[in-house]
């Protein structure tokens, strides 16, 4: 039985079933917080914990799914290309939005961690929570954070961002699809972008641009802070 569970088919089947169930629940309830990704992750974790299945068994299949994240991010280029006119027209607002958003992310994470009395290492790990994992890992190592904490913070930020995006759009009354996409990509990187893609092609394209820009801007901002 243990050997069967260590086969890649286990992780893939579990993920697909959990996600499809999440999609069904999201469709049935229609609630924005009933997010298929969040439900799928919770179900998978529940199954692993309940039967005491090691994460490594799940990951034999899980890692095969994760491989598709690179190509999925790459093909956002097609959406961006289709929105070339918008990108040119709104280059300045896009640059300003991602830069201000990234700065607010770093500064607010720093001051809140201080407020909660978290130690130096944890605080530094949290500064990178709004950028995608490869950016976050590199920066976290560079500024003296704990890479594992950064990765967890990045993933949680992304999932929460994807779940909260429709709510935040209403809260801030953001009607413009360009502003929606930039805000999603800047605050919740690639996971948020998966939600932006569902909202529309403009949102998906802008979120894709924002995740790249915010990542690079965060690298530069943290380098400046270190000096």
């Amino acid at each position, binding site marked *: 039985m243990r050997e069967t569970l260590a086969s890649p088919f286990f992780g893939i089947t579990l*993920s697909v079933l959990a996600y499809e169930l999440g999609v069904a629940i999201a469709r049935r309830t229609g609630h924005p917080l009933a997010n*298929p*990704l969040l439900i799928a*992750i919770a179900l*998978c974790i529940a199954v*692993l914990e309940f039967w005491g299945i090691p994460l490594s068994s799940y*990951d034999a299949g*899980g890692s095969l*799914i*994760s491989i598709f*994240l690179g*190509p*999925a991010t*790459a*093909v*956002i*280029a097609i*959406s961006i*290309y289709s929105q070339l*006119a918008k990108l040119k027209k*709104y280059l300045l607002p896009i640059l*300003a*939005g991602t830069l*201000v958003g990234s700065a*607010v*992310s770093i500064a*607010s*994470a720093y001051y*809140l961690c201080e407020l909660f009395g978290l130690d130096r290492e944890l605080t530094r790990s949290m500064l990178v929570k*709004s950028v*995608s*994992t*490869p*950016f976050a890992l590199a920066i976290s190592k560079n500024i003296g954070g*704990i890479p*594992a904490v950064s990765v*967890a913070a990045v*993933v949680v930020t992304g999932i*929460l961002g994807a779940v*909260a995006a429709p709510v*935040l759009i209403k809260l*801030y009354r*953001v009607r*413009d699809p*360009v*502003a929606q996409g*930039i*805000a*999603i990509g*800047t*605050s919740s990187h690639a996971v948020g972008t*998966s*939600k932006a*893609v569902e909202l529309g*092609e403009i949102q*998906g394209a802008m979120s894709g641009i924002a*995740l*790249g820009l915010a990542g*690079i801007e965060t*690298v530069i901002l943290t380098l400046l802070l270190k000096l």
Partner: protein
Amino acid sequence: MRGITLGSTSEEPSRDGGSHASESRTRKAAGPKNPPKLMLQIGLVFGVCLAGQLASALMPIAVPGSVLSMLILFALLVLKVLKVDHLRQKADFLLQNMAFFFVPAGVGILANLGAVKGAALPLLAVILVTSVLTFGSAALTVKAVMAAQDGFRRSRAARMRRSRKAQADA
């Protein structure tokens, strides 16, 4: 089988400006009647990702391979080396299922929980609050700069109209 997400846009890429009208005609005329086989599309996308990984290894600062592959694919499209039709089926599959691909990353948090030193709750609070602030500041900045830009463009257009009118009057 035409895709849903991208199908409509490449059919009418000129929604935002007249300058693209001629481009869309040439693209349609030159575009392949039969898009490449799915296997070839998969190969193309993975090849671009490989190039992105290579570029990432060569960069002086850490830029993820996926972001660089996005940049490379964008450049190939702008330079017209590749056409949207070449990748449509594969791209639709990837974009429509993007959220699903994040499931293992989320489950993987299990492995990192030990590292948070029992501060999971304050960290979660930090994430919640900063996310709301980051989203709002980015969205409001985009809106404000857009409004300023539109105002500037309008006043410039009005100035030009006035000066043209003055010339015509003279």
